[in-house]
């Protein structure tokens, strides 16, 4: 019992001793001011922005020919007078431009790339596109081609200058037909072919292959222009007197005299008009028109076998297989 009382006293005394030591230390350290005292010094803060780039990629396809240099102009936000960047470079397979963030319209297709080949044979082209804030824009491929070559005009009968509808007109390189059309109801035609044929040496216009006359053929030279006007006269001229016949096959001999072994002046194509002036049991004597310099025609006389000619009906000048489409 006594022992337990002493133990209690010992514990109480120990606690009192610890409290005394602690309070003594606190007194030694001094009191603490209750508030933290700020001086409102501006803290040091660093703000760094990272702006992204816009990479625009535009694949280009060159059809036929490739221009030496191309000027690319990039416009944004519907402004088509002040490009945000202009790049002149050799014709690339893929045009790549890097633009600063935020310059493009990201809501509408009001951004524009103008592709201006530094070659008058090529037409400028434009691409409208919708922008992004930053990152890469992959645009669909764009074709760059030379300006089209256009030949146009009307087809008329040499004899009376009336236009002819439904006449086949084609543009050919050697014997390869590039494009073929027929004249419209007014007798007019227009053919456009890719600019890559600009410097072709054997480009020609052929008309009237569906007519009974020999086809009209003319070499075309686009080296000076992209548009050519050619009015095509078919059939015999008014100077060739009636009655008129046309050859009914290729390589018809047009001879100087009716005698066997006489000199052959020309081998006539199928559809060559002949003005007959004399008739013998086996041959016709007549005149043909021969074109000399500067499209001037002269008439030449000669002899043709009767079996090589048929009478010309100017009211029906189309070959039989498409006779239903004829009109004058």
């Amino acid at each position, binding site marked *: 019992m006594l022992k337990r009382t002493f133990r209690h006293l010992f514990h109480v005394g120990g606690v009192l001793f610890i409290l005394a030591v602690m309070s003594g230390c606190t007194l030694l350290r*001094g009191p603490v001011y209750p508030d933290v*005292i700020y*001086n409102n*010094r501006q803290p040091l*803060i*660093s703000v*760094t922005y*990272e702006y*992204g780039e816009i990479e625009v990629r535009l694949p280009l396809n060159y059809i036929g020919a490739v221009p030496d240099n191309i000027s690319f102009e990039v416009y944004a936000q519907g402004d088509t007078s002040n490009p945000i960047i202009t790049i002149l470079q050799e014709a690339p397979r893929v045009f790549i431009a890097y633009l600063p963030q935020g310059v493009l319209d990201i809501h509408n297709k009001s951004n524009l790339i103008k592709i201006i080949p530094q070659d008058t044979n090529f037409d400028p082209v434009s691409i409208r596109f919708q922008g992004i804030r930053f990152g890469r824009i992959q645009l669909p491929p764009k074709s760059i081609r030379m300006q089209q070559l256009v030949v146009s005009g009307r087809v008329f009968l040499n004899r009376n200058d009336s236009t002819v509808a439904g006449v086949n007109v084609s543009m050919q390189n050697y014997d390869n037909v590039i494009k073929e059309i027929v004249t419209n109801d007014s007798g007019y035609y227009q053919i456009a072919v890719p600019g890559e044929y600009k410097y072709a040496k054997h480009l020609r216009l052929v008309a009237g292959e569906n007519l009974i006359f020999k086809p009209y053929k003319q070499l075309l030279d686009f080296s000076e222009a992209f548009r050519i006007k050619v009015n095509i006269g078919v059939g015999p001229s008014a100077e060739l007197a009636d009655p008129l016949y046309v050859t009914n096959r290729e390589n018809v001999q047009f001879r100087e005299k009716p005698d066997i072994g006489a000199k052959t002046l020309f081998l006539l194509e199928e559809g060559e008009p002949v003005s007959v002036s004399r008739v013998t049991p086996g041959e016709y004597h007549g005149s043909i028109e021969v074109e000399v310099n500067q499209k001037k025609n002269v008439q030449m006389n000669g002899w043709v076998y009767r079996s090589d000619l048929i009478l010309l009906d100017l009211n029906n000048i189309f070959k039989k297989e498409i006779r239903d489409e004829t009109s004058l």
Partner: protein
Amino acid sequence: MKRHYSGLIFSLLASTCLFGQVKLSVNTIPKKVDVMLDGINIGESPIKNERITPGVHKFEINKEGYAPLTYDLLVNPAQAIHLDFFLNPIYQVKFKTEERGLVFELNGEHQWDREFIRLNLEAGDHFLRVFKLNEIIDEQTIHVDQPKKFNYYLKKPVSEE
């Protein structure tokens, strides 16, 4: 009703995709500090790959032993924004004087008249005024850049030296 909610969710997602495109990273000194963005805890620094929308935002950082920091920032449309916050530490300064009857005032608002006191001061300059019998007898700036002991004594007039 279901369609209504799905439309709402879609519009929220769309607006997030359209406008929440600025990547945010936050560094602090010291590290491992909770960062509040517009009242929402976005995590402990360093923070990376967080997203923030362009516009005005409020950052708040509190850490024991440092002055609380509040910063309003207008976020511009950009790919990313990096923020570095250097918190001002609070140092414990022991202030002691042997002069009697003086009243001390710091930064125009904190006063005491004890000869020995411990102060928690934000790092930087503090403006001290000393009063005796309600009259200013001394003014000086205290520069605090570490825990230290500050002994104050009155400069005696030249005639007394």
